[in-house]
């Protein structure tokens, strides 16, 4: 426990709801709770809100990816008679631009918090009593927050591997987004979404990027047909993609990082890189806030188990976001944050309806913001096969889409998974630019228990990439007139 004398000096803050962590989950819970009438305090260790997503995750990476896609598009414009010279890239300016984007958002969040009377206390929080949190900070004064309810939203951090040495040239996603410089040769360890997004950015900026992945495929969780499209589209821009391969050691020398591999596609000789990105997953921070000491269950991995209302085994303590489990996605955290806030407000203010709210979303979309983007939601063909479940696959290849041809992205596709008994839409995947923006329609269809006819009979605008969703539904029903006829039996 903390020294008594320290606590006597600390400011005592009282509130209805303490939110530990100011990322997308945390601030969403805090703002919703404040909107419902509660007195809320957010404890956040950074000097700004936004967590990983805003500061060293989603937003910086999407900013860079936007320009990476732009660079790639410029490179391909030559086939249409518009030849761009290779771009001159001012890394410092690009980094500054990213920081400007992030800065606008964090300032906006601070404003939203102020407008709601939500107090932000900077520092690291640790539970010291069932309804007490101690906050410590280098920069700010310490404080003790006394609360009636708490939401733990402390997120996750990149997994470190013990056999990988410490070296400024070996970075995690946070370090990679700092964009210190464009290396000549880069290795990405981990072929999941984060690794491939960073590979996309760095290769667009001019680095030669190799990828090493432990499993037998990139982007685990996605159907293989989508990954194949992505791989083909990136074959020229990426270096070696080594599947079923692991890094056994890295020797950090002045002239470069010498990486030793093992596995199916492992090069026999060690390879030399200027920058290595370790993106092998994220570990939850549940074990770092003293939750166990007040009886909150935290598992061996650092996850905090919760029920459908986001409640931990301690009735007045909730947890949301990465710290409660996969998928570790900001949009899941936001919705969980809303649920937790409503349940807490319901209990404190005697509102039975809010107190009964639960996380009932059935599906959570995933997106790889690479180029092309890969987005999927609900049932996948891989999952259906593993479960032994029969599904109908309704596919629309973008080679048949006028807009895709006009945009030069005819390698993409849209597919819907339908329940064979009633044609209900139970999942879908899209590969191509803007896939992430389009998958929401499929998500809506699944949540609304829509059937293929509902999508097919909704008029989508032409010529768009989005109409491929309606066209895929038509194809599933045998109505599509933009594809070759189905062979009559």
């Amino acid at each position, binding site marked *: 426990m903390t020294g008594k004398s320290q606590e006597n000096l600390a400011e005592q803050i009282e509130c209805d709801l303490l939110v530990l962590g100011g990322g997308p989950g945390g601030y969403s819970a805090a703002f919703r709770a404040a909107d419902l009438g509660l007195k809320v305090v957010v404890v956040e260790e950074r000097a700004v809100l936004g967590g990983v997503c805003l500061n060293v995750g989603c937003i910086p990476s999407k900013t860079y990816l936007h320009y990476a896609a732009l660079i790639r598009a410029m490179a391909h414009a030559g086939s249409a008679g518009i030849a761009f010279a290779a771009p001159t890239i001012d890394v410092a300016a690009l980094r500054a631009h990213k920081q400007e984007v992030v800065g606008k958002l964090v300032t906006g969040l601070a404003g939203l918090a102020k407008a709601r009377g939500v107090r932000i206390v900077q520092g690291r929080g640790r539970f010291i009593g069932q309804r007490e949190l101690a906050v410590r900070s280098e920069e700010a004064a310490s404080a003790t927050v006394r609360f009636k309810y708490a939401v733990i939203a402390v997120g996750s951090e990149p997994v470190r591997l013990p056999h990988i040495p410490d070296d400024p040239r070996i970075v995690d996603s946070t370090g990679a987004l700092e964009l210190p410089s464009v290396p000549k040769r880069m290795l990405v360890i981990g072929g999941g979404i984060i690794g491939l997004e960073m590979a996309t950015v760095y290769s667009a900026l001019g680095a030669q990027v190799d990828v090493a992945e432990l499993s037998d495929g990139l982007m685990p969780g996605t159907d293989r047909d989508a990954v194949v499209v992505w791989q083909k589209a990136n074959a020229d821009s990426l270096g070696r993609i080594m599947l079923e391969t692991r890094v056994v050691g890295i020797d950090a020398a002045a002239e470069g990082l010498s990486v030793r591999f093992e596995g199916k596609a492992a090069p026999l000789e060690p390879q030399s890189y200027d920058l290595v990105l370790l993106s092998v997953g994220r570990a939850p921070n549940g074990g770092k806030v003293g939750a166990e000491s*007040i009886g909150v*269950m935290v598992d061996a991995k650092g996850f905090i188990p919760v029920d*459908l209302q986001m*409640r931990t085994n301690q009735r*007045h303590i909730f947890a949301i976001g990465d710290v409660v489990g996969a998928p570790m996605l900001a949009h899941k955290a936001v919705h969980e944050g809303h649920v937790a806030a409503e349940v807490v407000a319901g209990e404190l203010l005697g509102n039975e309806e*809010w*107190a009964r709210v639960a996380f009932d979303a059935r599906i959570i979309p995933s997106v790889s913001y690479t180029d092309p983007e890969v987005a999927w939601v609900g049932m996948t063909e891989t999952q259906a096969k593993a479960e032994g479940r029969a599904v109908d696959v309704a596919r629309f290849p973008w080679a048949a889409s006028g807009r895709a041809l006009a945009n030069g992205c005819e390698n993409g596709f849209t597919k819907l998974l339908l329940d064979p008994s009633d044609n209900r839409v139970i999942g879908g995947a899209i590969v191509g630019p803007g896939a992430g923006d389009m998958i929401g329609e499929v998500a809506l269809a699944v949540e609304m*228990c829509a059937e293929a006819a509902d999508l097919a009979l909704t008029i989508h605008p032409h010529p768009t990439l989005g109409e491929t969703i309606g066209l895929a539904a038509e194809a599933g029903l045998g109505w599509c007139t933009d594809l070759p006829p189905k062979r009559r039996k």
Partner: protein
Amino acid sequence: MRYEFNLPDIGEGLTEAIVRGWMVKVGDQVKEDDPVCELETDKTVVEITSPCDGTILALNGKEGDVLKVGTLLIAFETEAVPDMPAPHGASAPASASAAVANEEKAAPATAVVSGPVTPINADVRAVPSTRRFAREHGIDLSQLAGSGPGGRILRADVERSLSGVSAGGNVGSVAQLVAPTAIPHAEGQQRIPIKGLRRAIAETMVRSVTVIPHATSMFRCNGERFLTLRKVLQEKMGVRVSFTAMVIKAMVPALQRYPNFNSSVDDTTNEIVLPGQINIGFATHTDEGLIVPVIKNVDRKSLAEISQDIDRLAALARDRKISAEDLRGGTITLSNVGSHGTAETTGGRPIINHPQSAVIVMSRIKPQPVVRNGQVVAQQCLDIGTSYDHRIIDGIYAALFMETVINVIEEPGLLLGL
């Protein structure tokens, strides 16, 4: 550090309990597992033991107060916070949430009931806004039939369920089928709240007669062999058995032959559920109301064991110390109305212990006039009858079932053969 111990989930879907008494007071030092208070639930009295070593800082509730599961029970000062169980995930029983009162006062918390937090089954066809609406109003969507496309449950279906009218064939909320009637207040009245065990009985009775179409058959049979057998067992084996135990044993072959009498109907799936066990409950009167302890696996027990079980469980029930485990799992119930008073009942309509499919009622063996060889003679008779669920049991099977039971009562030696 201060540790707040909330009223734990006692199980059986119970959401509240009444404080019967405290064994400790504020300031007492307690050790883990020391008894700290007694709570009364619908069915039984439960002793709560201390979850940790420590000092009592506050007790929530006076004797007679009703507390909801999950509200503060005792605040301790302790260094060792106990291991807590995992939060309820998919199969959470009903748990109430409480407005957290001022920590220093042990004030009863104002309760906002939140109901069970079970996931909405993926097969339930309902859009997000409807799912949320149902949650907010504590409606279980899996109990409703949907009138929307493809069987989709619409908001209107949920609203109708809230107002007590059921959509599709399901009996929605049983208690809401008829609008409640108020009795106007008047001078000289006494009003006694129906709570605890009384309330549990009331709800089960209403549910039973609302859901189950009761048909009844009453029989009179020859109890002479039973009377003789009881004496023989006492003399030859030194075992004192009750007629209740003997009838329970006599029921076994009939239950094995006519399993519908040993079943339940699942209204949600329209299925007859055969439990694969024979667990016979016997109605026991206690000062606070009717309790039905259950003897498990009767088919595997001897008459002596059954009789001992009856004695033991009945005593526990009367002392309100019977465990929840001894009250659950019953597949059919026997009610012996002959053991009380002197007035002789000549019949009646017993109510089935929902969700079972039948109840057997028996009375005292006593002399009755019967016709034998054309003459009226006095014979020791046992009156025995049944109410049964006419959805799944037709009259003829009721008759055949009772005939099988009666055959054993009239000739217990048949148990050797059957």
